[in-house]
């Protein structure tokens, strides 16, 4: 598990105020929405804003990729890394 994945897990628990779950209990490959962690569309909005703020990356365009990127902690980490490289 990478440091970035740990950071994302902490961010998920903190920004969504998940009371009954600890960051280390989230598996990196586990789906975040509906099944798995069971987050909903409002959580997706909260998380998007939190990621934007924490990592300073821009999520500008409206596209379906967003759903793929937000699928799991792993896919989020990949997304953030590629965004950071692109902006660096």
């Amino acid at each position, binding site marked *: 598990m990478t440091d970035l994945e740990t950071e994302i897990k902490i961010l998920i628990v903190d920004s*969504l105020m998940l009371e009954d779950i600890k960051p280390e209990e989230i598996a990196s490959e586990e789906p975040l929405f509906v099944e798995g962690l069971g987050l*909903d569309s*409002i*959580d*997706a*909005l*909260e*998380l*998007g*804003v939190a990621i*934007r703020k924490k990592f300073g990356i821009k*999520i*500008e*365009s*409206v596209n379906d990729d*967003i759903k793929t990127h*937000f699928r799991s902690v792993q896919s989020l980490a990949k997304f953030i890394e590629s965004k950071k490289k692109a902006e660096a």
Partner: protein
Amino acid sequence: MTSDATHWAGLRERGLGWGLNFSAYAYRLLGRTGCLIVLSPIILYFFLSGSEQRRASQSYLARVLPMSVVHRRASFLDSYRHFIAFAGSALDSFAAWSGRLSPEILTIADDTGLKDARGQARGALFIVSHLGNADVSRALLDDATRKRLTILVHTKHAVRFNEMLEQYNPEVAVNTVQVTDIGPETTINLQERIDCGEWVVIAGDRTPLENTERVISAPFLGETASFAQGPYILASVLKCPVYLLFCFRAKHGYELHVEKFSDRITLPRQSRDQASQTYAARYANRLEHHVIKHPFQWYNFFDFWA
């Protein structure tokens, strides 16, 4: 195809400029009442031919009038009066956009809400409605306030209309953002605006065309009606204060009402639907409070209780 589209858009643009010039001229020449008299055959035509809108108006008036300040049963003619009020309101919008209305005609009914919003470190969310004419207020507000506004609209047409308006009269232009669904991108964009102190404006009395899941019901004028859940979701994610804005036509000009709705809207995960329902019911309650005072200024000409 492309040239056709450009051509068509160009025509529309000229059409709007011409229409605004013409109504500005008519407004100056005839005054508001004079314009309405000249327009009365057209209003009558829409009244007689628009059976769906007329029925919506009649069923709405049958509900509201006995509860309202008018306090009587609705007649057929009341519906015509309702249509005239709408035409008058559209006329006022045109006059305001063309710069014909003096800002002095706007009075602020109670400035606590507006002062409160101006005193916020960050921006705020404003819920407007199709009760009264919020469009007029945006044209009559001072420059600094108008520059803070970002209006959420449902269609591309509305965005385009605003661009045309800006070309015609930059002084009444405001930012618009098209939202079909509130996704992360839109939210982040709005979050940035709120952080910069902007005021985001969204309508609370129209339900989304596409996303039918985000609709909640609340009692309104004695029966359950559908309201959009979007404003409350947005407010909870933006974590900003929420105000309601109404602008009513009064005897001489317009009256602005800004009231604080909530310091912070929260929709806890376990009870999102119940929580947003509570907010929608409160909104419907405020809407009702105002609509019974201004029954003819309700500009939703569709079956609101469908």
